[in-house]
């Protein structure tokens, strides 16, 4: 992305993509690309490959904490709702039990904890991943429909400081890719 005069112009190239047929080759290619100094890249695979995200320099520990926070919120708000209703707003004698029947509040409090933690874990995954996103330039890549089946891709994005359409393609070819091509935006 750069400016020409006052107009923001996007480069027509999103990045350069290399296709591999083997997860191990994708992994070593990602390692080599990191070593070569590339930073803005992403790998695409039809199943999760452990360590691949870390290899391309990605780290994010927010989801567990968000879910934990969601759980705490659920527990506290659930218990407060029960207590406020049963003790303050609608005090009602049920079988002679105390208004603050805390043992009997545990089940609902527990369910609220789980519900809010689950909703947070589910929602934050989509939010942080930027999904749903029906259009993504990466879908323009050649053969990209294999990425959900048996293709393993490494894409170095144009926003990378070191990016150069020709050089980067040449670099990717040295990694044993089956196919290397530019991706239009």
């Amino acid at each position, binding site marked *: 992305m750069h400016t020409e005069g006052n107009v923001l112009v996007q480069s027509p190239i999103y990045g350069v993509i290399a296709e591999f047929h083997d997860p191990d080759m994708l992994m070593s290619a990602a390692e080599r690309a990191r070593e070569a100094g590339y930073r803005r890249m992403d790998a*695409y695979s039809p199943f999760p490959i452990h360590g691949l995200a870390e290899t391309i320099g990605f780290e994010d520990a927010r*989801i567990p904490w968000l879910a934990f926070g969601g759980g705490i919120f659920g527990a506290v708000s659930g218990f407060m709702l029960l207590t406020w209703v049963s003790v303050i707003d609608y005090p009602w004698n049920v079988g002679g039990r105390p208004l603050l029947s805390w043992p009997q509040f545990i089940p609902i409090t527990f369910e609220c904890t789980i519900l809010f933690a689950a909703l947070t874990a589910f929602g934050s995954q989509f939010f942080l991943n930027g999904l749903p996103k029906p259009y993504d330039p990466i879908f323009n890549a050649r053969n990209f429909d294999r990425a959900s089946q048996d293709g393993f891709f490494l894409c170095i994005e144009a926003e990378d400081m070191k990016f150069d359409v020709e050089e980067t393609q040449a670099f990717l070819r040295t990694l044993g890719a089956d196919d290397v091509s530019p991706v239009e935006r």
Partner: protein
Amino acid sequence: MATRPLTGGSGSGTTPPAAPPPLRNRLVPQNFIDGTHNYETITDIIGAVVLSPRPPMIWFIMVGLGFIGLNFMLLAITWLLLQGIGIWGNNIPVAWSWDIVNFVWWIGIGHAGTLISAILLLMRQQWRNSINRFAEAMTVFAVMCAGLYPLLHTGRPWVDYWLFPYPNILAMWPQFRSPLCWDVFAVTTYFTVSVLFWFLGLIPDIATLRDRSTSKFAKFAYGLAGLGWKGSAKHWFRYEQSYNILAGLSAPLVLSVHTIVSFDFAVGIVPGWHTTIFPPYFVAGAVFAGFAMVLTFGLPLRALYGLKDFITDKHIDWMAKITLATGLIVFYGYILEMFYGWYSGNVYEMGLVYHRLFGPYKWFYYALLFCNGVWPQFLWSPAIRRNMPFLWVTSIVIGIGMWLERFVIIPVSLTRDFLPSSWGSYSPTLWDWMLFLGTMGFFTFLLFLFVKFLPMINIFEMRDLHYRYTGGHGNGNGHNGNGNGHNGNGDHATDGEKVLTNQERSALPETRGGSA
């Protein structure tokens, strides 16, 4: 697309054979995919169930039967809405009967799905991968059937929203000290989380279907449902975090749901309902019935769609073993109920023991002991665990037995109150039958629609399993070990922890890169 050469095989010549997977990976149980496969054939076979233009005849028959059942259900509900619950057989003192029996039965069946998906995932039992999707779908549909009953049993289903706590002009709140109110929270949470978990697991496979389908409409529909999933490593990373957390939450959730269902009874003081073993005993019973139901539907589907390579005999064996184990826990519960009924020295508890054994409903109790206590003992035999028709019959027997268990606990206990003047009896009406059979039809209908429109085996996890064991070289050396490692003696202690024999290990090349 089909003309494209397969890229997964090591026989493609132009590329050097990749290094073998690290030693660690070989410790993964290897016999959960049979036959010779690569990423492409895995995707093909499972995807074909969905994408083939014409499903087999039997599919139409099953969906048709389900649809007829569904209409019975709608008829029964319509008449109920017009007439009120007086059309059912329950009446004081038996205020809870088939409606609650069927509620508990259905929700219990759903629990196997969560157990397979969540608990086995947490326990890193990889054999779950080929049955979890199907079992999760069963969970969602079974909870739908289950939820229907209490909603209808309220008598005025159109004001069921009163069950939820919301500020209202009636200045009224739910009675939070009642287990029935806990049920509202438990079942809603369970349904919500099950749907989320199921959908999250489906997204990558929906993306696969989007990329494979040829019809424009299918591409559009799967594209919409796939939410633009692109398989990015960053996305996978967060995806797995989220998925594991949902699994971790589902495991205690599933326990809590049936526990709360058991509280519906145990918290009261009706003899036969009030006993402290109920929570774990109900959970075990739920899993027992649920696994039986997975077998009831899974065995025919596996044969029908030729999925024997993915749902292997090993899977069936494991499911049969879990069925046996949970069945024993349930039977343990029966022993305790009888023994402590007598041991308590309480006249009502002892009366209940007598009533069950010698009362007017004694045959239901004996049938229950036979179905849940005696018949499942056949599963101790490895030969019977491999005998699919027999196993299928067993799964049906267990389904009936678990239904009888709830029947014996719920209405039969209610026929004997503390005072003999309040004793009563119960028999179901035509409408009870129609609603029950109707929900079975509804369940069958939904399940077969699911099989047709969504992949019933988790494709991306099967690819992952394939990679973990073979490193992706389906036609290469990897799977040869599969044959002799397993060779069908299929039973025994190596379960889930299969390791290579010394001979096999010595035949394998050195660990890659010394990274270990």
